[in-house]
């Protein structure tokens, strides 16, 4: 895409008319229209036969077209095409061009859902590219980060040791056994020698260092994680139930969730900013285009259909 040079400059603080012009230039729809016109116009000039229903009866492949065919062939990791292969590729190309023009002449592209959707999707891709036109400044990112800092919150983390009481070995007694063991561990330190003897061997680790909430939830089940992160550090506590059975837990430390400094997450902020801007550009462009249409609908959208549950409800049910 040929982009106006001015679009590549980082945004300067707006002032007077220059500022207004900058803002205007940053309007997604204008960007879209300008770039689109350039592309479309340029293409129409280069390949006039493609446009309009009065396409000419001449099909010409230029050396550039041949190069494209050649490169497409090579790109699939094959050795260079032989003359025969090249002839057949060219023949396919010509055949395609003929079918395409005849199809256009017959209006086969009209009123077709698939074609409509593809074109609509291409428009969306076009918007996306346009939204990539400008790099954000650091100040801009920081301001945006402050508005959306909750998105970048670092998860709480816990460092803990645990004793496992296995239902495989103890059946229904696992919980009571754990409670009794806890009595013996009152006031004992994390590495009390007696601790391991009271419990069963665990399939994975006995000590988990600095684990984020999500990882504890994946390893033990979410209910265990929720209970664990509510515990005060410094003593044996429990019993807590996991997806595997009952546990006594000694929490060394819990680092609560916190909002990072901007510098820590600048790269993430940048990619989130880009994604948000993409959405914004798409939304605005669509809104502005929509404003140019009059949309006429029946008054009652549901008239004549049996009432269906709304999808959100269906999902909750599902």
């Amino acid at each position, binding site marked *: *895409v040929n982009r106006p040079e001015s679009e590549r400059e980082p945004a300067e603080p707006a002032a007077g008319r220059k500022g207004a012009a900058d803002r205007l230039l940053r309007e997604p729809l204008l960007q879209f229209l300008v770039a*689109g016109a350039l*592309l*479309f116009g*340029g*293409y*129409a000039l280069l*390949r006039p036969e*493609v446009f309009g229903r009065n396409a000419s009866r001449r099909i010409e492949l230029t050396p550039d077209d041949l190069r*494209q065919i050649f*490169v*497409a062939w090579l*790109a*699939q*990791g094959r050795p260079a095409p032989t003359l025969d292969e090249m002839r057949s*590729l060219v023949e396919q*190309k010509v055949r*395609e061009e003929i*079918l*395409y023009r005849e*199809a*256009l002449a017959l209006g*086969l*592209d009209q009123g*077709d*859902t*698939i*074609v409509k*959707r*593809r*074109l*609509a*999707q*291409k428009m969306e*891709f076009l918007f996306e*590219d346009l939204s990539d036109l400008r790099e954000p400044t650091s100040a801009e990112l920081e301001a945006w980060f402050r508005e959306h800092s909750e998105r970048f919150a670092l998860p709480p983390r816990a460092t803990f040791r645990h004793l496992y009481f*296995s*239902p*495989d070995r103890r059946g229904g007694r696992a919980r009571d056994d754990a409670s009794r063991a806890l009595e013996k561990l009152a006031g004992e330190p994390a590495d009390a020698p007696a601790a391991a003897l009271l419990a069963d*061997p665990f*399939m994975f680790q006995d000590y*988990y*260092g*600095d684990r984020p909430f999500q990882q504890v939830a*994946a*390893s*033990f*089940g979410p209910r265990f994680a929720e209970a664990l992160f509510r515990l005060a550090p410094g003593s044996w506590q429990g019993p807590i139930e*996991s*997806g*595997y059975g009952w546990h006594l837990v000694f929490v060394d430390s819990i680092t609560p969730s916190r909002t990072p400094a901007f510098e820590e997450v600048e790269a993430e902020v940048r990619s989130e900013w880009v*994604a948000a801007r993409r959405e914004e550009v798409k939304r605005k462009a669509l809104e502005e285009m929509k404003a140019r249409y009059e949309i006429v609908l029946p008054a009652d959208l549901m008239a004549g259909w049996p009432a*269906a*549950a709304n*999808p*959100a409800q*269906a*999902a909750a*049910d*599902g």
Partner: protein
Amino acid sequence: VIRHSVCVVSIGVALQLGLVADASAKKADPTKMTCEEYLSLSESERPVAAAFLEGWNKGKKHVDIGEVGLDRDVTTLIVSCQETPKESLWRRFEKHVPVLKKHVKPIEMECEDFVGLESDIQPELYYFLDGYDRATRTQTDVAGEVDLEQDYRAFVQVCKQAPKESLWAKIKAHFGKKQRRPVMRSELRSKTLEGIASAALGLVAAAAAAQAAGPDRRAYFGETHVHTSWSLDAFAIGNTITNPGDAYRYFKGEPIKHPLGYDVKIDTPLDWAGVTDHSEYAGVVNLANEPGSAVSKLPEAQPLILKARTKEEMERVALYAINTLAAGPPVKALMSPAIAGEVWKRNVALADEANEPGKFTAFCSYEWTSMPNNMNLHRNLFFKDCAKVPPQPFSALDSFDPVDLWSWMDGQRKAGNELLAISHNANLSDGRMFPTEVDIKGRPIDAAYAESRVRNERLTEIKQLKGTSETHPLLSPNDEFASYEIMSILLGDPPGRIAHIVGSYARQALKDGLAMQDAEGFNPYKFGFGAASDSHNTAVPYRADNFFGGHSFTDGTIEARMSGTLVGGMFDARTESTAGLTGVWAEENTRPSIFDAMQRRETFGVSGPHIQVRFFGGWEYTPDMLAAREWVATGYAKGVPMGSDLPPAEGKAPTFMVWAVKDPTSGNLDRIQIVKGWSKSGQSFEKIYDVVWAGDRKADKWTGVVPPIGSTVDVEKATYTNTIGAVELKTVWTDPEFDPSLHAFYYARVLEIPTPRWTTIQAAKLGVAPPDVVPATIQERAWSSPIWYTPSAEARKGAKPGTTVEDLKKQGAVALSDAQLKALIEQKSVWLQNKVTGEKFMIIYGALGKGADAKPLVPAEPGWVTQRFPAGQGQFQVRWVGRNAAMQSLVGDAFEASHFGTSRTYNIANGKIVTELVGAPIEIAVYKLGDKYLGARSNEFGYANYEIVPAEVELSPLSAAPKVAPK
């Protein structure tokens, strides 16, 4: 790293600098550091210390210096170190797979090349060479102290003095002057010693402590098959917004939008994933860079479009598009690099963006969507390194022939781009995923086909939304758990076609592979297992209690699903399954580590829950070993993990250590089974052993079968409890029926206790009856990749040779003609013996239709018609087969036929008795040798295994029964 200005300093001064530095405080031996000490190093020192260790490691293994990776990312080492602060850094390091961004060949470098390196990677190379040099100079395990900053600075000065000298020569001189103890292997320097080095490596490796510890591998769960709006079919059925970036967000645990607009969130986030949009349509969805040219090409799609343009027909249109694009003449215009390459680039960029080594791995991947004649031959392709992917994927438009795909993959690999393929939905392949005779173009399956397939197709996906491809009840009639989420259809629902079962399931392919290895000398079917989703929603439903379908509006509401909407006209939405996942045993959560795990098939499939399963095969495992805390290390040290070949036989029978732990958010475990397959004289067999189970159930004394665990499911309320079943199951199992002369494979299958199927849960929500087209409860499960046993040439001699058709002909046997066959079997009850198993049984061959009624009965009711079949066709019935008889492949359910009296049809044509199993023809030729009649079945690779024998009067003589229970 501080950059020193160039100045004239003599070598002597430089050395002096070095000596001064040695006296400074910052010295340590990295091979003796603890993780804690390593973490206390500065950010610039960490990669340097890692580089030293790598050099030391390579030197100690006597491996050629070769290419050295630099600019390392030590995040994963740091993360793994944080977990075990007291452990030795060296142990952590050995298990860590570095992420290296730049590669150099030090042997070929000159000093000025070194000086010219970026200042932050210079020290990495220096300390790598330091480590290597020290390792090769000393025979002890003591590296000595290293100054991670000063040594290097001194050397840079030295090197600047002699820009044209060899870096390696200079560095050795430099180290030498530092007065290290010289040792015997001081000149063990690369190229010249490759041969010796590899021999030495074997000796050293055997003794190394690292070997005894074994690799430290964890289970990482990931998705290998999902579509976003960038796949045309997904887009066409209404998934128009979300892209691969959204898919990765979903897998990491963020809620995203279902195509119908509501939020969906994963239950347990994944460790890794690869989005696999259809390569065939990638080009169609993006022309942003050249909108004019792309628009111009669009009407190419015209011939694909159906006349129907109503919303109801949309998905049918999409399917038609897929069929035609994949099966019909390729529409090359849509595949120009400018178009397809652009979307592929975006895909790669999004994978790179989502990839967080140590936390979440995102692969560069795509789906090759070949489906000639509606036969699903799809494969998902995974690349090891996104930096090396081709400009454009090889699509089904380039060729629908898997053989061409494999040769393209070979080419990529040769060019340094590691990649592998995962076949999927063998169950929808119409029997063509696992051919045994000819390939898709009619060429015979041969050794070259087998090698190419095994080299490229490392895994197969055995469960996903559209059903299970492990096995089918008609192929495994003695497997009571075979009827699990079966779906037997053809994509696109071609009218008048019935999908073939034979050739569509993985277990049968593994068995056929053994028979082919035995009879023909090659095995095309040595693959590992994985499972996935094939969701077209970007988001994926893995759990029965959070099932939102996989196909946009066709199954996106509870009403659409539960009213049995025919998705794409192909299948009842209620028969759709939850999505599966692939577990890999890998050192760490990075692309190279997980890719390597898939490459060595150390993978397992799960039906949805994150069940973990380990499976080791060897010759000397004992219960004591399994009971010990370091049993996993023993597993690796004394045998092989899932996906491998058993080492050469050392004992009477192979032993297996198998272990499974439940998903903490799902049902308890019922049992672990080992599925064994083996082959003899062209026939293949399977047997399922219950090896460890929950509770105090007793295995049947005679068959070893463990009774069902029962059920806690309340179907009406759709609930269950974990009051039955086990959290963890493990055992050591020895094959009680091992024959060292026969090829075999073994894999583990883990079953959960019964839980409500998603349809039962949603029926309860709606207050309607659970659907009668699917079971109300299921047993979620996990499948380990197989371990293969290959007999040595010596052991093969112990096998009793079977009789081949070739042998018979040499002995003068003559094939019977149609008329002779008719005379031999029609309206007769023929007693046969399977010469391989020794089993005897009877087949009743009814009258072949004459276009009129069959022979009138005497003495009564001559008008009663016994059969009325078209000309040339009759029915046959197998009699007197017991439930536990050893049955060869592809005979259907012979016990059921025998017991219930069911029949199938046969005819006689071209000198063969022609039968079929769900449409797959199985033909029997009969040869007369003297007064003997011998039969050869067409699926037994040239063997004539059946002989007509005299009628039996006693089916199971007591004199022949074993006196002691086998179990």
